[in-house]
């Protein structure tokens, strides 16, 4: 589902990622870890085409990302749900509208949007907060909204960048539970985190990113 072949990325001549090659299979849940500044976010950005590789090839859900034209990028992104490190919630929209936005982009009919968003809100147990604005929610609730927004359009791939960055242990466990549920429904999930506790003992594949390249691959 995600395939990197000899990918390198430079910023102003400085190497950020060097000769990265790995494959994430369809339906897999994998982690990518490493210290801050190791290039985890850049690697995710390469997948959803916010950055372009300087060398190598990236294939995501059948799309050769490096060769995508500007006008085609939105259609790749509709196949890739993203849970951003900084949430990127719209504070002038309610919880319902934040999630519905992802479906409106897909040109879905209003009645269908209402039904789908309501179901998702029930799944993440935030139905009672649908008319609330994000700034009035806790960090954990905001993160659940972000995950719901990423998943509501049923993408084939879900990327999460430090999804438990500012959350306590209990909330983090709940959030990771949500990712497992999503993965169990068949979505390929790739989570970037520096927190070893998140993947320790999960039995999932972990890619260790250090010094611009993948240092090792192991089972968590």
């Amino acid at each position, binding site marked *: 589902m995600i395939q990197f072949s000899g990918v390198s990325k430079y910023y102003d001549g400085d190497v950020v990622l060097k000769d990265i090659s790995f494959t994430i299979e369809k339906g897999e849940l994998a982690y990518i870890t490493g210290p801050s500044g190791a290039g985890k976010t850049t690697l995710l950005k390469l997948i959803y085409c916010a950055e372009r590789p300087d060398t190598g090839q990236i294939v995501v859900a059948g799309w050769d990302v490096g060769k995508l034209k500007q006008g085609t990028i939105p259609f*790749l992104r509709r196949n890739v749900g*993203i849970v951003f490190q900084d949430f990127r919630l719209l504070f002038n929209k309610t919880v319902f509208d934040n999630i519905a936005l992802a479906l409106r*982009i897909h040109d879905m009919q209003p009645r269908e949007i209402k039904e789908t968003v309501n179901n998702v809100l029930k799944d993440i147990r935030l139905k009672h907060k649908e008319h609330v604005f994000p700034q009035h929610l806790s960090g954990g609730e905001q993160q659940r909204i972000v995950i719901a927004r990423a998943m509501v359009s049923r993408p084939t791939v879900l990327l999460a960048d430090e999804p438990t960055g500012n959350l306590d242990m209990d909330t983090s466990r709940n959030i990771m539970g949500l990712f497992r549920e999503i993965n169990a429904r068949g979505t390929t999930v790739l989570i970037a985190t520096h927190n070893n506790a998140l993947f320790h003992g999960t039995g999932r594949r972990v890619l260790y990113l250090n010094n611009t390249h993948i240092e090792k691959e192991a089972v968590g």
Partner: protein
Amino acid sequence: MSTLIYALQTAMKSIWNEKWINLLTVLSVSIGLLILSSFVTVTLNVDSALKRWAKGFGMVVYLDEDLTGKAENELKKLFLQDPDILEVRYISKEQAVRELRLSLGENASILDELDENPLPSSFELKLKRELLKPAVVKKKAEQISRLKGVEEVQYGEKWLSSLNTLSTILKTSAIFLGCAILVAIVFITYNTIKIFFYRRKDEIETLKLLGATRTFIRLPFLIEGLFIGIAGGLISAVALFGIHSMISFKGVEILPSIRTLMVAPPLQAYILIVLVGAVMSLTGSFIAVGRIRY
């Protein structure tokens, strides 16, 4: 369809949320359009007056005192064959006196004092309308005055020249002013939409990451620009109608003939004002949103 509804809702929400800046923009656009349309209306009125005057424009060819009837007939034949001349009217010495008597009215008795008729016989010629340019008329007058039996040729040379100059100045000014105002409307809308675009920069960034197409992102801004143009156009059309009606009604009290002289802008002109506002504002919005890069 769903995208269009969403874009409309977003645009309407933004118009309401940013009502003061939108109102100012709409008023600026409407003032620009009003100045332009008023100027065009004045130009049209002057042009129409010129055409109306031109309709009655005549060249009077005074004939030699001792010209025989045969020679007069030959001259008439010559004028009738001239393709530049539309109408030929012969005015005999006797008819000239009659007409003068009529125009003098109560003072006509003054003519009884005269021993003989001092007025010459003449031809009144009407030239084709398209020839009514000072240089052309002057050339024609010179040509006719050289004919045998012609004493003098008279026409409203100064009037014709002044009105033509005025019409040319007004038309040229309308073109320049029009271009300047149209550019200004584009610029005014561009500025407002650019401000809105920057204010929603974070939201646009999120939309791009969620997979929104360029059309999805641009549409609300274009609708907002279109609204500004249409609203501005409507206000200026209503204002123009009001000003024109006021001048027509109030002007009649001062100058009664103004009603027949004034030309009212046709309905199409009002529609055109709204259309011009819409197209120019839409252009401004389109430039403001610019190229969206992912």
